[in-house]
C-alpha cells in the first residue's frame, strides 16, 4: 500500500528533497518541513512548512497543524542534518552544539510527537536518517559521529517501546551520499541521493536498522567489531 500522508523534516535539500519528490510523485500528500521551505514550491502534492528544527517549542503545535492539513499521517522521516567541516585539531563547541541541536535534539523533538501519535493509533512508520558515521567514534568528526550514534540509540529505544503496537520504527544508515552537506568533501563513490531516497522508502516499512547497500552492511559488520585499541591504530 502506498503512503497517503507523510512528513519529511529537512526537506529542502539532499536526501530529504528527493524523498519529498518521490513521495509526491507517488500520489502521497507530503509536508516538507525546512528552513528554506520555499524550495519545495511548485512540487505537486507537496506542502511546504517553514521551520527551524532547533525551535523545539514550536514542534507540538506545528506537528498538529501539519497532520490536520495532510488529513492524517502514515510516515515521518527525519532527514535534517548538518556536518560542518571540522579540522583535525579543532574543538569548536559552537559547531558541536549546532550538530547536536540539528541532528539529535530536532530529531527527538519531532519523533517524540510521532511516537505519541503512532503509539495511540497503532500504525505508521517513523524513519530517522542516521549514518554509517554513527557506527564508530572516529578522529575526523567526533560530534557528528556522536549525534548519529545517539540518534540510532534513541530510535532503538523508541522501537523497543512502540514497535510492539505495529508501528514501524526504522533507522537508515546511508554511506557517503552526494548532497550539499558533503559537497566540500569530494567523496569518492558517493551515492546519488535519489537512489538513496528510493531505498529509504523501500526500507521504511521494515522495523529495524538498515544500511542502504549490502556492501555497507558487510563492511560495517566488521568495522563495528574491531577492538578499540586496534581501531585506534588503523586511522580509519
Amino acid at each position, binding site marked *: 500500500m502506498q503512503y497517503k500522508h507523510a512528513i519529511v523534516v529537512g526537506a529542502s535539500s539532499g536526501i530529504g528533497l528527493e524523498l519529498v519528490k518521490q513521495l509526491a510523485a507517488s500520489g502521497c500528500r507530503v509536508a516538507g518541513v525546512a528552513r528554506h521551505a520555499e524550495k519545495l514550491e511548485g512540487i505537486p502534492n507537496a506542502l511546504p512548512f517553514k521551520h527551524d528544527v532547533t525551535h523545539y517549542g514550536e514542534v507540538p503545535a506545528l506537528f498538529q497543524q501539519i497532520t490536520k492539513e495532510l*488529513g492524517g499521517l502514515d510516515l515521518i522521516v527525519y532527514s535534517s542534518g548538518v556536518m560542518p567541516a571540522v579540522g583535525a585539531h579543532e574543538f569548536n563547541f559552537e559547531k558541536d552544539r549546532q550538530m547536536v541541536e540539528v541532528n539529535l535534539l530536532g530529531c527527538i523533538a519531532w519523533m517524540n510527537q510521532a511516537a505519541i501519535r503512532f503509539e495511540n*493509533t497503532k500504525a505508521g512508520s517513523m524513519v530517522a536518517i542516521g549514518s554509517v558515521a554513527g557506527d564508530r567514534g572516529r578522529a575526523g568528526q567526533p560530534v557528528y559521529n556522536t549525534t548519529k550514534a545517539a540518534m540510532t540509540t534513541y530510535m532503538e529505544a523508541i522501537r523497543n517501546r512502540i514497535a510492539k503496537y505495529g508501528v514501524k520504527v526504522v533507522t537508515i544508515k546511508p554511506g557517503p551520499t552526494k548532497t550539499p552537506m558533503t559537497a566540500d568533501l569530494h567523496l569518492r563513490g558517493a551515492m546519488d541521493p535519489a537512489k538513496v531516497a528510493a531505498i529509504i522508502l523501500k526500507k521504511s516499512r521494515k522495523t529495524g536498522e538498515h544500511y542502504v547497500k549490502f556492501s555497507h552492511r558487510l563492511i560495517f559488520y566488521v568495522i563495528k567489531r574491531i577492538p578499540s585499541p586496534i581501531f585506534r591504530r588503523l586511522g580509519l
Partner: protein
Amino acid sequence: MNAVLPAERIARVAGYGFTSAADGYLYRPTSVEEIREILKTAREAGRQVTLRGAGRSYGDANVGAECVVIDITRMDRILSWDRGTGEIDCEAGVTIEMLWRHILEDGYWPPIVSGTMFPTLGGALAMNIHGKNNYAVGTLGDHVLEIDLLTANGDLLTLTPADARFYAVVSGFGSLGIVTRVKLEMKRIHSGDLRVLPLSARNWDEQFEVFERFEKDADYMVSWVDCFGRGRQSGRGLFHAAWYAGEGEDFSATLRPEHQDLPDSIMGLVPKSAVWRILKKFCNRTGMHFLNWAKYRSGRMIGDGKEHIQSLVAFSFLLDYVPNWRKAYLPHGFIQYQSFVPKERAREVFARQVEMQQEARLESFLGVMKRHRPDKFLFSHAVDGYSLALDFKVTRSNWPRLEALCHRMNDLVLSAGGRFYFAKDSTLRPSDVRAFMGEEALARYRDFKTQVDPGGLFTSELARRLEL
C-alpha cells in the same frame, strides 16, 4: 495558530467493516456539560467534530480524519422507565442490548431492533435503523416521542415528531448535532419467544412469493439469499417469517434474560469465540460458495416449512450469534452494500445485481432480503419495496473492481427509483445521493444545517465523501 489538542487523545477509529479507518482525537464524555466543553476545545483547535456511537455503521459514517471524535458510549444511563405506558427515557449511549435487558421482564421489547444488539440509540437514530419488521412498523424514528439535540453552539433543543426538524435530525447521520437523550415507546409482548416459520425458496420467484404471502400477517420477515445461485436457481435461499407468541399470558419465564442469552458454544462443543477463526479459513470465494451451498441444501432438508419456537434474541440478533465474525474478513475487511428498490422493480434489479457480481467474480458472501415501507424522514432509505443487503470481502487487489461493481449496481438501483442506506454505505458518489434524495430535499437539509451548524462543525468521512 490554533490551540494544541492533548496529543495522547489521538486514536485510530474504524467503521465496522474495517475498510474505513481514520485518526481523530477521541473523547468519551459522560454528560451534556462535558460535550459542551469538548465542542469548545474543538473550536479553539480549529477542528471539526465527528460523532460516534458504538461504531456499528459498516462504512465511514463514524470516522473523521483529524476531527475531534465524540464517542457517546459512556452516556449510557436509563433515566426513567414506565412499565405502565412502556415509555423509556434514556441517554443516547444506551444500546439496544441495555434497552431489552431493562424492559423485557416487564413484558416489553424494543419495537425496532437491528440485526445486532450493540448499536447505541444515538447512532441508531442518526441512521434511523430498521428491523425485520420495517414493512409493518416503520423505523426506529417512528417510535420516538422526544429527543434532546445539542447543537454546535451548545444549545440543547428538545424535538418531538411535531417539529419538522425532528425528521432531519433522525436519519441525519449525526451531521446536525448530538442527540443526547431519547424518549421512546416500547412494544408490549407476552412471551420472550417467537413462532418462526422457515421456508426454503428455490429462486427469485419463490422468494418474492413468500414475502407477498406473509406480509399482511407476519410480525417479522427476512430471507437469506445465496448469491452463488445461478440460472434457474438464482435467488435461492431461506425465508423466515415470525410471529409474537403467548398472547393473553401475563408473565412467562421466557421473559427472563437468562432464557434469552445465547449459548457460548455451538452444540456444546466449539466455543463461539473460536468460530470466526474457523470461518476465516472459508472466507474466500471457493469456501463461501461451499458454505452458501451447504446452507441452502440443509435449509431444504431440515425444518423446511416446520414452525418452531425461537427466543426473541436468537431470532433478532443473528449477527451476534458468532462473536467477532467480522474478523473473518481481515486483514482488509469488507463492505456492506444495501439497496432499496420499489416492489415492482425489485425482482429484476436484485436478479441483475447477483448476475453482475457473478460476471465480475465478486459474489457477495452473504445476501439478506427484507421488506420495507416508505417513511417521512429526510434521509430515508426505505421504499415500498424490498432491500438486498450484501457483504463483499475486500482484498489487497480487488478494490477498484469492487468499487466499479458497486457503482454499476448503484446506477441500476437509481434507474429503478431505489434508495440507499448510509449505515451500510462505502461506495456512493455525491451524484448518487442527489439522484435518490432529490434537489429539493437536499436544499431543505442545507437550510437546516446552516441554521443549527452554521460553521460546519459536524462532519464525518461519509459527509465529506458525499459532500453533505
